[in-house]
């Protein structure tokens, strides 16, 4: 099938590329843009390893076509750190031992990033529900929840507004 030209902004960088309509966003990011931080864990939109942020919403990049993101603003784990400084969420995952093999981690963090904007001060239950689209096989989640709480505190204490 002939390729279509799409343009989008990924982690703040504008780009234009030709893609086959069937190219999944996750493959576009990983194969065409070499942004391999976004992972594939299930292929069926159950695991959340492929979670990215598109136009301010968490989405599963294995179940959306790259052509559908024409004109969109996409953010991946590679866009979390700014100016060489880790994002509060990255720091919190590190400090609270919120990761083991690291495979779910990019999806977890990018979801947590959005969750904390939707709800800057979530309760434990709100975190559990808000992150229920992301599976982890290693950590048992307890430290991930702590990490999200930790990040929420850091963000509200610093009064820092995370870029919307």
């Amino acid at each position, binding site marked *: 099938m002939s390729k279509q030209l799409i343009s989008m902004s990924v982690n703040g960088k504008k780009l234009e590329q030709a893609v086959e309509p069937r190219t999944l966003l996750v493959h576009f990011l990983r194969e065409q843009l070499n942004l391999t931080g976004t992972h594939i864990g299930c292929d069926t939109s159950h695991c959340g390893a492929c979670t990215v942020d598109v136009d301010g919403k968490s989405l599963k990049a294995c179940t959306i076509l790259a052509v559908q993101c024409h004109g969109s603003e996409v953010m991946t784990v590679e866009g*979390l750190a700014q100016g060489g400084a880790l994002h509060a969420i990255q720091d919190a995952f590190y400090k609270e031992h919120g990761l083991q093999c690291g495979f779910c981690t990019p999806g977890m963090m990018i979801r947590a990033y959005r969750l904390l904007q939707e709800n800057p001060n979530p309760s434990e239950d709100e975190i559990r529900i808000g992150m229920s689209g992301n599976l982890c096989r290693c950590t048992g989640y307890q430290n991930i929840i702590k990490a999200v709480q930790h990040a929420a505190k850091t963000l509200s204490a610093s009064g820092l507004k995370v870029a919307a």
Partner: protein
Amino acid sequence: MNASITERQAALMGMGDSRLRKEDARFIQGKGNYVDDIKMPGMLHMAIVRSPFAHARIKGINKAKALAIPGVLAVLTADDLKPLKLHWMPTLAGDVQAVLADAKVHFQMQEVAVVIAEDRYIADDAVQAVEVEYEELPAVVDPHKALLPEAPVLREDLAGKSEGAHGKRYHPNHIFTWEAGDQAAADAALAKAEVKVEQKMFYPRVHPCPLETCGCVASFDPIRGELTTYMTSQAPHVVRTVVSMLSGIPESKVRIISPDIGGGFGNKVPIYPGYVCAIVASIVLGRPVKWVEDRIENISSTGFARDYHMSGELAATKDGKITGLKVNVIADHGAFDSCADPSKFPAGMFHICTGSYAIPSAYCRVDGVYTNKAPGGVAYRCSFRVTEAVYLIERMVDVLAQKLNLDKAEIRARNFIRKEQFPYKSALGFEYDSGDYHTALKKVLDAVDYKGLRAEQAAKRADPKSPTLMGIGLVSFTEVVGAGPSKICDILGVGMFDSCEIRVHPTGSAIARMGTISQGQGHQTTYAQIIATELGLPSEVIQVEEGDTSTAPYGLGTYGSRSTPVAGAAIAMASRKIHAKAKKIAAHLLEVSENDLDWEIDRFKVKGNDAKFKTMKDVAWAAYHQPPAGMEPGLEAVHYYDPPNFTFPFGIYLCVVDISKATGETAIRRFYALDDCGTRINPMIIEGQIHGGLTEGFAVAMGQLLSFDEQGNIQGNTLMDYFLPTMVETPRWETDHTVTPSPHHPIGAKGVAESPHVGSIPTFTSAVVDAFAHLGVTHMEMPHTSARVWKQLQASGVACE
């Protein structure tokens, strides 16, 4: 002075420190390097054509349509591999396994052909275009039926072979019989017993399902004759040996690299047809070839775990002292015996099934059987078959307690191997290194107010209006890990030692390389901590590398909780070699004899003179600049550690479950896990491993199941059905510990990552069954899904109408 000792100690971030993980920096920035992240110039993509049938003859394969698709380079079948003698491969268990189905398929989703194309999209199209003509044969999915005289012969390639790798085969679908213990003694104990109980139980087939599936990138350089393969492998050195044996390429020209691995849990120990085909394709096409399976392929065709049909008998006195144990197991190994156990142990360490109890006589027998299912039998976050063994004995003890109307805690306390009995020789042949079960049990019972819980349960039982049943599960498990002493443990003839090489650089930093490979356990962090404590160098300056067979010393890999018990010991021993040399250098520098030196945290000091000392860092510099006359310069060591024995971590777990009488839904109200893994290297990481293991145990006990219909069609092989709990279902874990070091391990560490999986599974079952115990129920089969629990509610007459 004291303050400074503490400060120096703290600065090392050595053993006992909850040091943050060194590996995290790359993972949290999306810079991990997993197999699917690897790209090479000219790289091709491979995808696999798989059988829709569980048992069928292949009448023909037509590649034409697939080859006609632009971008498709090759389609390979068994016939193409035959001239290379690679259409079958040896398994780690002494069997052979079809790389690509040779005239016959033996399980649904078996590899039938591979296609190699310019990108993965085209490869997938080509898979669909390969036409395979099958003639379906009757499938055998039940291992008991497989052993009936009239059962179809599954492995025609073994026709007439009455002897397998592990002795006699008494049926064409029989693989082996393996026994341990003294059958006559166990029979006698049962014959004389005041009380006997018997229980059948099925430990269902499950899959480790790490979040990253399996895959590889194979790259053969035809000019240099060198093969480099990046692979999701928990045992890269073993893979290199096998690849060299299969391909004829010298081991020195085969390089296997396990990059970052997205979880393994045993699933990434075996050698899969996909790896072999990608390697062959790369050799044939002279270009790098990537193969990464999808989730359905992963669940359907790669190493499953368990599938043990067990039956146990216990003999006991009237007051609950166990006098004998007898166990029979039918082990469903699927179509090929590709279990990854030490060669002499086709049922792994199943003979740990006497558990934490002093049982004077015991016998167990395991019969391996072929069926039309995927091969495997891997250690899913456990040491070889220890999970099955622990499940069996813990269930049996509960059944006995119920029969005697004894409390679960009480019967355990009466039968525990006592602290002073260690080292304890079990009736099935293990020598338990150390343990203190009574102390641990008391700690747990006090922490949860066990009496209070029982009182609450009694009140609920007395109240017919209670909308829930309450169950209390209790398990006191002992694991055997750290395989293993090479006099009894080998894989393909290679002893199950592990290794470490340490080089201390002139400026006092160091690099250490091991034969293991982390899949999330944090080796880069914890290994450095062992060295830090042993050598007095800060863990921050110690670089740890593993997974590359060209740079790391040979090791058997990471599974069966062997990294800490075996590689951890190798690290300590290599460190001690360096330490010994360093001491000589320090004595030389300080112009005293070695005997006049004391070691203190990070320095050698002259006895009685705190001001005269040389730090390890000073010594490192001297080792390269002014070593004593006659001494080789440099400061490095290699150690291959062959453990004298296994280690025996243990734990006491308690679980409280509430069951809805209306729906059979279970709610884990409380889960208290006390672990004793001996010396604790990094408490933060231990805690994390325990959370993870408990969660995996929860998944297995409450929902995971690979089932098959009569035709051998696998059921529920996507993450829609295969139960991986989300944050919402996962219980909140409470953890605790005691410390009983291993006396034979250089640093006393026993290993922990798998205990919570092994120990928690029977705890959940114990809790669920306990909810029904007053109704006479002694056992319920896993997984304890709402639907199944509801059936029990119905059967026991307590379901809400």
